[in-house]
């Protein structure tokens, strides 16, 4: 029997639930020569701000057991280049769901960038990053209290017609209260989780490995924690969730969907295996057969 891998995010059909997570797949174009992007359900583009940013000093990467720390610091060419060049170029080679990931340092910046993304024809979903651990006075600061998360959500929703997903930080006491605040403020969906604030020390140099001292920890090691948060949030909210955090295999994807995710983002795994997403998408039908699943839609949040 032909397996139905498609899922529906706020009325947008994804051919499968596999979506490379923001920051782990560039603007899609970087990999267009190496694989057929059209096997991907969606692509979440690299986090974008109003102005171009170089990001943090190097080293930006530190290896860990079962994962890695990154402190890229939102290097990006700015929103005008995103909507004027990156998205139109990607649209020429990719027919799936394009998700713009927007970051900011003020409410005004979030609003201005989201409005521009909303006006860009090629973009299907706007993912608002209120959880970047690698920039000061912005990013995660908005995502660590229910009040400020709701404030960003309402401000962005007021200028967008396209579905708006809020990307949540796991570095909080109660992620469910923040998720609910976003939902109450009008969010169309939620992406969770972003990276966990982490650190490594080079014991020979007696200095932090990362130039910015701390960074976001992600990779296979965080999967159980991310899954737990997805489960809690998906069962507390009605809006769809994109599950993210440590996903590395087709089995992980099914697990995330059973926990309540409608789509599943793959992040750090792309950095160790650039072909992770197409491989996971290709492995899903056989796994569904093994588990007697005919349509992935049927198992969303069934646990």
């Amino acid at each position: 029997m032909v397996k139905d891998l498609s899922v529906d995010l706020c009325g947008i059909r994804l051919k499968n639930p596999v979506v490379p997570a923001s920051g782990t797949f560039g603007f899609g174009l970087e990999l267009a020569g190496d694989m057929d992007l059209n096997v991907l359900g969606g692509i979440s583009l690299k986090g974008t701000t109003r102005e171009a940013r170089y990001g943090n000093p190097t080293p930006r990467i530190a290896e860990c057991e079962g994962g890695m720390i990154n402190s890229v610091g939102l290097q990006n060419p700015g929103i005008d280049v995103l909507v004027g060049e990156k998205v139109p170029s990607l649209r020429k080679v990719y027919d799936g769901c394009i998700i713009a990931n927007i970051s900011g340092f003020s409410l005004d910046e979030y609003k201005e960038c989201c409005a521009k993304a909303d006006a860009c024809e090629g973009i299907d979903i706007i993912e608002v990053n209120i959880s970047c651990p690698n920039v000061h006075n912005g990013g995660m600061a908005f995502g660590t209290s229910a009040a400020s998360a709701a404030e960003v959500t309402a401000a962005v929703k007021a200028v967008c017609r396209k579905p708006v997903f809020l990307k949540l930080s796991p570095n909080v006491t109660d992620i469910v209260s923040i998720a609910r605040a976003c939902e109450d403020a009008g969010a169309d969906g939620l992406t969770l989780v972003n990276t966990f604030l982490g650190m490594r020390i080079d014991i020979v140099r007696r200095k932090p490995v990362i130039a910015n001292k701390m960074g976001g920890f992600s990779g296979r090691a965080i999967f159980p924690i991310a899954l737990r948060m997805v489960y809690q949030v998906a069962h507390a909210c009605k809006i769809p969730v994109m599950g993210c955090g440590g996903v590395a295999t087709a089995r992980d994807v099914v697990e995330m969907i059973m926990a309540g995710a409608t789509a599943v983002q793959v992040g750090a795994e792309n950095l160790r295996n650039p072909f992770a997403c197409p491989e996971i998408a290709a492995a899903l039908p056989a796994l569904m057969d093994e588990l007697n699943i005919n349509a992935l839609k049927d198992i969303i949040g069934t646990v």
Partner: protein
Amino acid sequence: MNKSLYTIAENSLIATKTYKMVLEGNGVEGGEFVDIGIPGYFLRRPLSVCDCEEGRLTLVYKVVGEGTKVLSEMAVGGKLEVLTGLGRGFDPEACRERALLVGGGLGVPPLLLLAKRLKAQGKHVTAVLGFNKADEIILADEFRAVSDEVLISTVDGSVGEKGFVTDAIVAGKPAYDYFYTCGPMVMMKVVCNALEGPGEASLEERMGCGAGFCYGCSIQTKNGPRRVCKDGPVFKKEELIW
């Protein structure tokens, strides 16, 4: 870029903590480095290509941490998953007639492939190779086989000119119209500042994906931000900000 399995055909100690590994497989040719998956470690290890012909890749690496230690303990016949065809390498065409290759320590191996390519184009090659001491010298005979002139420097003076590569260059006064350098960042900075004329340097940076999409290894250049793994690792001297 291509991901494929390679078989270890050789993995032998050639100098202090330094190994030569020969891999056999069918990845793509070209590119300046490969990214090797090491069992038990999350990120791959980028290693520059020292030689490459008909499905055989020669890599020279030093044990600097746990990952490279595991690599050094792998037996002949073992399999490694390798990303091949990564990075923009040296441009042999940039040299008109006489090339000066300046390598330091583990920066020496990728210059060997360049030396072969330059010779194949009929160009004159002078290689200046710098090491800390005699038991760290690598590939000297291989360079002599493909170069017109090889100058060696050691910091302790145990072999060749005592001091750094720049001391060997001052002493040997090689004629060149273009230089190529790879080695520790501090060495390349001195080389780029000291040597007259155009040249290029192969940079080193801690990498994430190795293929240009994570932006983990970005550097600032005179032409804006560049990714060491994709836009480089080789950059023109004029672009670099030291």
